[in-house]
């Protein structure tokens, strides 16, 4: 059945990694609004061009939460450049796919990450 989530999605959803907000973050990104019903906040700590800490807080559906968790796991330890290269497909593949009709909201978490990186880079200048 199309609507069934992969094991991986359920795992990320029920045991999300990197939950929280980094108080002294180097960059913060947030997407969504209460009206939309999805808000993803990602904060990062960067050292030597490398994301060495990352946390998220998410208000949203199963996909919003599981992609947030997955994105933080994937970004952690990556160079800024590598992190910017991450694509929607990378995220979806790491989750062993998403049910049809749900693959659209997978992009939000990645968007939040990239906003956080942009925020960090802006602060660098």
């Amino acid at each position, binding site marked *: 059945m199309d609507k069934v989530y992969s094991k991986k999605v359920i795992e990320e959803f029920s045991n999300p990694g990197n939950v929280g907000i980094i108080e002294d973050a180097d960059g913060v990104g947030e997407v969504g609004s209460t009206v*939309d019903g999805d808000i993803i906040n990602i904060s990062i700590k960067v050292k030597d061009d490398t994301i060495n800490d990352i946390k*998220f807080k998410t208000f949203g559906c199963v996909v919003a939460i599981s992609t947030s968790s997955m994105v933080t796991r994937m970004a952690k330890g990556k160079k800024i450049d590598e992190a910017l290269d991450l694509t929607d497909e990378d995220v979806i593949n790491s989750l062993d796919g998403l049910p049809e009709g749900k693959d659209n909201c997978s992009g939000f978490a990645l968007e939040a990450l990239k906003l956080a990186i942009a925020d960090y880079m802006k602060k660098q200048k």
Partner: protein
Amino acid sequence: MDHSATTPVDPLVVGAMLPYFSDMFGNSSSLHSFGREAGEALVKARKEVADGIGAMPEEIIFTSGGTESDNLAILGSMPQNTDKKHVITSVIEHPAVLNTCKFLQSQGHEVTYISVDPGGVVDLEKIESSIQDNTMLITVMHANNEVGTIQPIMDIAQIAKENDILLHTDAVQTIGKLPVNVDTLGVDMLSLSSHKIHGPKGVGALYVRKGTNIHPTVFGGNHEGGLRSGTENIPGIVGLGKAMALAGERLDKDSKHMQHMRDSLIDKVLGSMDGVRLNGHATQRLPNNVNLSFKNVEGESMLMLLDMEEIAVSTGSACSSGSQNVSTVLKALNLEDEYIHGSLRISLGRENTIEEIDSLFNILRSTVERLRSISPLEGR
């Protein structure tokens, strides 16, 4: 605890159906004995359904479910070959009614959608004021499937009668939960569905008051007095009949039991949790419906966590294609933004127990806490 979606078939109902799969499998319109047994079963079931709503057997048309009953009532009562007839309905009807009305609009008919108050009750004055010379039909549900609000059908019937307009009600959610009598309600047509009352899926009925003129929407061998062709689903119809009979016998006991559980759950949640509100009406409410909205948490995520604890509920905000689709009904109630995405419908069944309610409450509380702990909105 998602009994408004569907219910398990009562073993007594399955038992009543089984012989009609094999020994008495005949076609009810046949002359021969196999067919006669099937035909007699049909007569019995028709009487059981009629008795359950205070109607006469010949006023019952068997259909494939609540959706088809609603369609037949609405499409079947529109005069054929005449465009631009007018229908009045409410904004919180089931899609089986709403989408049928939208189809009518696409065919040139006119439809007025009546708004509801924050408790979900339709505006009687607006119904009255939107009546036109060419209004054919008012269709308002007996009680809402999402928020459980019971509509003032008797008052609407008064208006319909005074203006000589047909009245249809979708009673899919009220059979077995409230007393349903077509004369007390004053309706000309009434839809019901078997799988909501511990009967089998794929069968329902439409009550059509004697003398009410409707035309078929499915054509064929002229079953059901020509109004609904297709070989009768004998086991299904037998199951519906049995389910109606049981629902009638058990109504008093079951509805008291469900109401007790409902009130206990509502009291517990409202009394001990923050950022929560009850959707729907405080008193004009189905005895088995609890619809809550939790601030700063999202419906599907709650659903999933509860599902992992083997608790089935539903939400009015399902995420699809990346944007939250909030149900028409919740939208019509004008909830605040922070509440609208966190709705949860718990619809109780007769087989639920008060112990299950206690356990549900505990799981629900920790679910909400857990999601709030990862929500960026908490504490803002």
